[in-house]
């Protein structure tokens, strides 16, 4: 077994997690802000939809994604018609899957962080001449900083551990869709326990380090320790 046997799936997994986390932060920030402030009656429905990936078995999610993203599926057709990339058994498809799979892990900490900002803080800024967009960047983002970091780390870590969805829509194309978890699964299937050990150890170490990071960040701003 060579270094590239570990490095290629690891690099792919890190790339997938990084791209997904970045996109999720961009998408979830407005969504979470809206959820934290809207008075619409359909908010519970939206919140349930956002949280659905937590409770759904990844295979269910993967199945629906496969149906939608396949060249004959609704989303796949649109992508093909526009000359877009293939969405199943491709890196693009994995990113789309990850976005949905990790959505609640980014959206919820963001929503909690935005909800925790006292309305008076934003009102005070408004009376000082700060426009809504100005308030968002000068008050909301700095005050939600910790929630944003937590959301990013959780989204990243959760994408690292993705397996079922990848298996369903990604297959196992080395360097394209063969992530760490798939590589471990295949190693075990082929009874290559040595390789599985190394891959699993790497996954364990990364996840552990990320969680330590989250908890130490939470501690740093806890009201009990100043």
């Amino acid at each position, binding site marked *: 077994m060579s270094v590239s046997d570990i490095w290629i799936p690891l690099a792919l997994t890190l790339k997938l997690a990084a791209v997904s986390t970045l996109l999720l932060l961009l998408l979830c920030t407005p969504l979470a802000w809206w959820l934290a402030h809207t008075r619409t009656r359909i908010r519970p429905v939206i919140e349930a939809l956002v949280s659905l990936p937590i409770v759904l078995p990844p295979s269910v999610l993967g199945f629906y994604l496969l149906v939608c993203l396949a060249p004959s599926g609704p989303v796949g057709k649109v992508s093909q018609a526009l000359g877009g990339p293939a969405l199943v058994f491709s890196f693009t498809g994995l990113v789309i899957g990850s976005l949905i799979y990790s959505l609640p892990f980014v959206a919820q900490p963001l929503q909690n962080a935005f909800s925790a900002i*006292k309305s*008076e*803080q934003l*009102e*005070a*800024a*408004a*009376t*000082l*001449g*700060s*426009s*809504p967009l*100005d308030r968002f960047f*000068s*008050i909301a983002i*700095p*005050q939600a*900083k910790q929630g944003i970091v937590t959301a990013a780390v959780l989204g990243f870590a959760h994408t690292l551990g993705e397996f079922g969805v990848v298996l369903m829509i990604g297959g196992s194309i080395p360097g394209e869709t063969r992530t760490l978890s798939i590589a471990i699964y295949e190693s075990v299937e082929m009874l290559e326990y040595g390789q599985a050990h190394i891959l699993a150890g790497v996954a364990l170490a990364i996840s552990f380090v990320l969680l330590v990071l989250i908890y130490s960040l939470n501690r740093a701003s806890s009201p009990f320790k100043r």
Partner: protein
Amino acid sequence: MKISFDLQLQKGRFSLDAKAELPADSVTAIVGPSGAGKSTLLRCLAGLETDAKGDILVGEEAWLQNGHSLAPHFRRIGYVFQHAALFEHLNVLQNLNYARKRALDAELYTLDEVVQVTRIQHLLDRSPDTLSGGERQRVAIARAIASTPQLLFLDEPLSAVDESARRELVHELERIFRRFQIPALYVTHNLAEAARLSTHTLRMKAGRITANAATQLALAPTQLSDGSDPFSIVVIRSRDELPEEGLSRLDTSIGPILVSSASLPRDLPRRILVRARDIGLSLSPLPETSFLNQIPATVQAIHEHSISQVLVQLSCEEGTLYALVTRRSAQKLLLAPSRPVHALIKSVTLQAEA
């Protein structure tokens, strides 16, 4: 600057329906019992209650009209919240700079000046959560002024402050109002605070405006039926020191009065209060008494107060005094309108627990 408004707002079971026109050239107090809708009215005027309906006209500017509401950040107000609402992620100086950066007319006065007048030089690098209640309010006031507002809104700024800091802050507020000359709307449930600081007063009850007049009139004890300790408002024009005696002679709306210099702040307050129960009446001047202040006065009216007491309304020079005396004394002195008397003032006060 004239402010006129006609506002409606339904909030759960509370409904606000307030209409008034204010001169708003100096400090206007908004007083009333808790739950009267004072803060809600202020929030409506500031544009913080987005469901408010009606009209708001400030000077020539329509802030609310035909369902169109001017966003709060365009209203050029400074708002001092009850709990200060300092930005928690910024230190004191950064809080001030936040306001300063968004100030429309930074030429009016410098940030240094604001810091000096509000006396917060020593707090600039502190974080808001390390400040005392009084310090937080000072910073909040400084921040509001730093944004060079054309109108200052203060929502019970002293209610979260402890008693001694409160007393000091009332003097400071008076000085600050005088220095920056920003017309202010001042919400308080404390009548003495309103009497000290304002020239015009709105009284509110259950979401309605019940009085809109000069403070002297709106807060006259005969107008108030809330069982509060009645007091008179005395306007001070100037002061002479009698250093060898430790006294100050004040030229006031009720004539000259002597008070202990130590009881007055260095900056002369504009108004002092005399509690009705601190005034005695005598038909002739008493040469052999310890009362320093015996003000010649004429009885104007006698108002019922309680089973045992009546409230005697007196005119002395340009001012009005109210004295609380027993019914028995009133009968003994044959008190009746136009009867000349002497008001014996036991003490004057700057705060009076109203």
